[in-house]
């Protein structure tokens, strides 16, 4: 399963161009919510190697960290890129080869969908594909040598997001990744070394950037009469604020006309 990263980047770039052009037109009409532009995550994660392969049979559960940045390209659809690094000890060298520990590094691109449950909770799911590398190290008593096992990662990530403010959230990110390794092994071992599976659970912080212009346009676009006719108890904070400023503006306009008339 060979991965052509240039081809994927080209597709993502073209996709970005097409849908971001469409988004400019739509955002004028939509939205009483600000449009989320960018989200940036940093998180810690616990990785659990799994499956009947050299990863699942050979590695201990490990810890790691990661960061992601995603751009909202059309409504709730986003694309992004991520980096992760995880550390695993070897529990069974007979399954992996004789080394002591490994550091798994992933770099991948992804696309996903963001669903807003309510004002503070959101869920997202995305699918990513990219490069993965295990940097394996022998213990110091055995020369401390290093070597690498590389491949391509396919990763399904889900996020449960709690928004503290519009700018900062906490995210819980369960994910599953399958790494397709390009390791040359004896034929009898090919199935064991073809791929490795990892289940991860992460907890991190998300920083969000919004386009607040949409909200201002929508609020001001409501007419004063329409807002005044609404029941105050049923009005949102945004509508109350819009009513306040529109009434103030109207009073100023009336004073100006009274001065001219007088």
């Amino acid at each position, binding site marked *: 399963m060979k991965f052509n990263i240039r081809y994927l980047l080209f597709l993502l770039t073209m996709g970005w161009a097409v849908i971001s052009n469409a988004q400019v037109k739509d955002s004028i009409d939509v939205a009483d919510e600000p449009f989320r532009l960018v989200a940036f995550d940093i998180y810690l994660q616990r990785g659990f190697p799994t499956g009947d392969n050299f990863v699942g049979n050979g590695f201990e559960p490990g810890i790691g960290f990661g960061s992601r940045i995603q751009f909202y390209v059309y409504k709730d659809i986003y694309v992004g890129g991520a980096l992760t690094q995880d550390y695993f000890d070897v529990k069974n*060298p007979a399954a992996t080869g*004789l080394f002591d520990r490994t550091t798994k590094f992933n770099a991948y691109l992804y696309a996903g969908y963001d669903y807003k449950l309510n004002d503070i909770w959101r869920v997202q799911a995305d699918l990513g594909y990219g490069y993965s590398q295990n940097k394996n190290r022998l213990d110091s008593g055995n020369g401390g040598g*290093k070597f690498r096992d590389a491949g391509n990662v396919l990763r399904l990530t889900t996020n449960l997001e709690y928004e503290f403010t519009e700018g900062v959230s906490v995210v819980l990110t369960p994910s599953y990744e399958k790494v397709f390794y390009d390791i040359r092994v004896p034929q009898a071992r090919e199935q064991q070394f073809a791929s490795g599976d990892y289940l991860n659970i992460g907890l991190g912080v998300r920083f969000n950037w919004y386009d607040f212009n949409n909200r201002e346009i929508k609020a001001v676009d409501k007419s004063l009469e329409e807002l005044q006719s609404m029941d105050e108890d049923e009005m949102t904070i945004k509508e109350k604020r819009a009513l306040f400023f529109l009434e103030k503006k109207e009073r100023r306009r009336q004073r100006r006309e009274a001065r001219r008339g007088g």
Partner: protein
Amino acid sequence: MIRFTLLLLMILICSCEARLEDDIRASFSTRLLDINGDPVQGAQVTAANYNYVRTISGSRLHKFSIDDDFILGEGITDDNGEVSFLMLVDGGCYINFTESDRLNNLFIPRSQLENNLAVQIPEIRLKQLANVQVEFVNTSGTNQIFTTDFKLESVYCNRVYIDGEVITDPGCEEPLNRSNFFNQSTDDGLFEFEVLFPSVIEVSYTSPSGVEMTQSFAVTQTNQRYEIQY
């Protein structure tokens, strides 16, 4: 600028790391037997490279030493004398077989792994280490200076895995720590070796007139001495 260059140099030196080959594993399997053909249980089998030592002039490669080298794989023989394990790859590798005072060895050249990463050897016989002395005794009173040559199963010569077969390294010569001439003085007839046994030593010696004589000795115990009268 000089400080920066020195700093860069230090960083480069510190960041140097020994590397093995990436994205590859091999496997090794065999069955260990003793000299009578019985399986040897509990023998340690170790695959190692030899990257670090033997660069200093005068140092000598001893194939049974694994100090300071990468251990690429290891295993222990079962009740039936069988052993099988995964190996990391770093060029050619040496397989050492040891059980108590019995041992043997094997070198697998890197080229042998190109087409087949699974090295399977039906059986290997464990042998013992013997100190052998061969002494030439001048009983004829000749003043001629002789040269001698030995063919033996030296601990310094590897068995080599080539095209599915194990052969003794044809390019290996016993490293004599003395001249192979004798009868230059009255006490220069003694030659000492470390060999594996059971094995056979073939000794040939040649007179200045070109007359060659050959004798063979069986090595059957840990300390043995042979005398050749000329």
